[in-house]
């Protein structure tokens, strides 16, 4: 290959207390699929924000097709030929696809022409999408297509994709990869950000690995093993979690035909959900976010009250009990949203320890709080789960995502529940903290607790769960043993892409 499309030389960006990017240099060739690999917090996002004009570098230079490139804002980046699909979509649910795309354009064409263009592009790249549909009705995968098509309409020379597969089912990932390969063959370069190694091996021509803001290596992902790349990314080799081989006990938690109406217009109802977990079992519930995960956790935690018999713990009905009554009975939960749901951001870790541990750890007498004992419990959690913080009096929001998650999970696990339900336990958590959390979950199951892990991360579920089922539009699939599951079966259980619905029905 000749002249690089984008050349980055010595980019540095420092934020107070942390150097997000330190002397980062690499090049992207025209038509290349270039992976940017690194853990959460390695500086990937800051780097692409600089390329997209959202953040200005402190020092260093960029050049695009040989000319100096200093985008002052995303509009300038787009004018040069750089487009970006963000991890979090910026779409209006109450508008349709074409209206959403028109909103992001400088000079939108007439609605009819735009709809025709959208259909044309979506067909050309194998991304089926109806321009007249309401975004609120689309799946996460379809919403991503809206964002991609919005970018493609600008005819970009470089397309940046930030963790595009985190919300997709395996089948949707295949469709996306097909599109990206086609784009690449037509000469569009792609900067692909991910920490999922197998994807990068399947898709990318070249990989640049970032760790703590620095480029620690480049490799050809097709000829490098996933383990080697992981070591490069994390800086050490990670232990695979060890699971106990003890036989499972009696059924400990039973959910029977649980149905809950949606809380809001775009909320998801729960429909006829039935679950049985035995003591010592880890049940993995897969599914793309927004398919009822939050609602299921709320129904199990007691934030949503249901019929008494819909949830039974050790044969006793608990469906009508409040969160604290369920905690006393032995069901503990770890919600997905750390700041604001599992923990109060501005409160200290001591106060946050009290949030869920008051009953089981007897942290009050007649309503009067025992702060000494609470502090002691917070310190125990911090010590046992290696939470990095100067001390328990620090506010929850001062902790990094991984450390706060370790604290939140540790707070529940150390109360030795009979049943633990966690939603996205390692979302946005660095690899070593994620490994610690998974090990703690497996150890808890080894001590005889039943555990439900709700997660979008299929690798995680396959690694730690004994049985697997999937949540799709508020319905739970049949449960199957994890051992021997293929990605294809899982994809069908997840409901696949929306276009796969017919296929699923035909199979059954």
């Amino acid at each position, binding site marked *: 290959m000749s002249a690089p499309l984008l050349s980055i030389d010595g980019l540095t960006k420092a934020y107070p207390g942390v150097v997000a990017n330190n002397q980062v240099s690499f090049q992207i060739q025209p038509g290349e699929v270039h992976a940017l690999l690194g853990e959460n917090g390695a500086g990937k996002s800051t780097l692409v924000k600089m390329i997209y004009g959202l953040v200005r570098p402190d020092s260093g230079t960029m050049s695009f097709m040989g000319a100096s490139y200093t985008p002052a804002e995303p509009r300038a980046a787009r004018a040069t030929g750089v487009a970006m699909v963000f991890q979090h979509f910026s779409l209006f649910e109450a508008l349709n696809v074409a209206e959403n795309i028109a909103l992001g354009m400088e000079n939108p064409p007439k609605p009819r022409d735009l709809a025709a263009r959208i259909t044309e592009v979506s067909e050309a790249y194998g991304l089926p999408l109806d321009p007249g549909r309401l975004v609120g009705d689309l799946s996460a995968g379809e919403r991503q297509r809206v964002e991609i098509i919005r970018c493609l309409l600008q005819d970009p020379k470089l397309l940046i994709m930030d963790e595009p597969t985190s919300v997709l089912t395996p089948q949707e990932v295949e469709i996306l990869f097909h599109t990206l390969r086609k784009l690449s063959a037509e000469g569009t370069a792609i900067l692909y950000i991910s920490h999922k190694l197998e994807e990068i091996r399947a898709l990318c021509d070249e990989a640049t690995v970032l760790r703590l803001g620095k480029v620690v290596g480049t490799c050809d992902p097709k000829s490098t093993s996933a383990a080697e790349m992981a070591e490069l990314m994390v800086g050490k080799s990670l232990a695979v979690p060890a699971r106990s081989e003890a036989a499972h006990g009696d059924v400990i938690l039973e959910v029977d035909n649980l149905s809950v109406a949606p809380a809001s217009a775009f909320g998801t109802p729960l429909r006829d959900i039935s679950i049985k977990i035995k003591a010592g079992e880890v049940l993995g519930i897969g599914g793309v976010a927004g398919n009822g995960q939050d609602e299921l956790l709320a129904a199990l935690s007691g934030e949503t009250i249901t019929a008494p018999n819909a949830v039974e713990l050790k044969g006793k009905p608990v469906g009508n009990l409040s969160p604290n009554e369920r905690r006393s009975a032995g069901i503990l939960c770890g919600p997905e949203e750390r700041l*604001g749901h599992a923990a109060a951001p501005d409160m200290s870790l001591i106060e946050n320890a009290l949030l*869920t541990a008051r009953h089981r750890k007897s942290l009050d007498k007649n309503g009067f709080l025992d*702060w000494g004992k609470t502090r002691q419990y917070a310190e125990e959690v911090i010590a046992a789960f290696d939470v990095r913080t100067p001390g328990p009096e620090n506010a929850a929001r001062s902790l990094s995502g991984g450390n706060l998650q370790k604290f939140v999970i540790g707070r529940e696990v150390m109360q030795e529940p009979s049943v633990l339900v966690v939603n996205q336990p390692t979302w946005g958590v660095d690899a070593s903290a994620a490994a610690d959390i998974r090990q703690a979950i497996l150890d808890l199951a080894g001590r005889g607790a039943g555990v439900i892990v709700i997660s979008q991360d299929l690798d995680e579920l396959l690694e730690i769960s004994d049985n697997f089922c999937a949540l799709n539009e508020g319905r739970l699939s049949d449960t199957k043993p994890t051992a021997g599951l293929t990605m294809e079966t899982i994809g069908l259980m997840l409901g696949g892409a929306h276009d796969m619905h017919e296929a699923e029905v035909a199979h059954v």
Partner: protein
Amino acid sequence: MFKLEKRPSPSKPWILATPILAVVMTMLAGGLMFAVLGKNPFEAIRIIFYDPLFNAQFASYSRPQLLVKAGPLILIAIGLSLGFRAGIWNIGAEGQYIMGAIAGATFGLAFYPTESPLIFPGMVIAGALGGWAWAMIPAILRTVFRTNEILVSLLLVYVAEKFLASAAVGFLRNPEGSGFPGSRQLNRIDAMSNPELFANTGMHWGVVMAFISVIAAYILLNKHLLGYQIKLAGQAPRAAKFAGVNPSRLIILCLGVSGALAGLAGLFEVSGPAGQISIDFNVGYGFTAIIVAFLGRLHPVGILLAGLLMALTYIGGELAQLMLGIPASAIQAFQGMLLFFLLALDVLSNYRIRMKKGEATA
């Protein structure tokens, strides 16, 4: 260019320093305003902050006034602060104050001319219940019909004022008052009076109650589960629900407590310093207490100090009107500056100011 940057944890030194800094800046800006009005700023500031307490000529009158004015402000503000911390906005303390006074006075006068030591305690309970009941209207409307408690509680102030007027000229009018509006003088009836407990201190039962409420609120917020739940509900409503806090119960509790304390303040006022139910009985304590609550950062000790400071600016402000002829509106602007600077400087305890660096070569 300046840039505000969120601190990882609120800064302890700044939390303590900003109120002092706010008072200093109010003195500077207020002094400037007085100078523009052609008054000697140093003299004006001295009259407002120093003379009411230490001037040989006025202090004997104005020093007791400090507690008389601060008492109801603190008592009402303590109740309001609990709700404000939980994100429950009772703006209608003025109305609850009026209803407490009417309920208490009605209870006492119903027994006239009986003399019994049980009448005054009964009036205290009736006063608290009157304020509580008036606050239950927005509480129940909010929990059952999801109405906005800010609007309902505020509008009920005007209803209470009309009710006060009808009581003063109607069912509570002094039968021996030659037809003038206003009830009997409660503070001249032994069984119904809330007297000054120590001569020339201004200390009456309402002030005692204010001090008790400060201590009780401190214990509640720092040592009791309920205080923890109040703070949690205000800071992270979703986490509060996860922790098992029942939002409706909290609304009823917070509005009830603030209504009862406002009602008590009204009762102690009508049976003490004011002395009778009259058409113009309420003088705005219920609204000023909102300012006091925020001036004290919703912290019990802060509210105690803020109540005293606010009372001081009232007394000093009146004195300055009298001595220097400063217009009343200028005094109000001065008091507004105090709140403005406090809230503006409050930013510094959660944020730090950084100078933005010049753009490096990109």
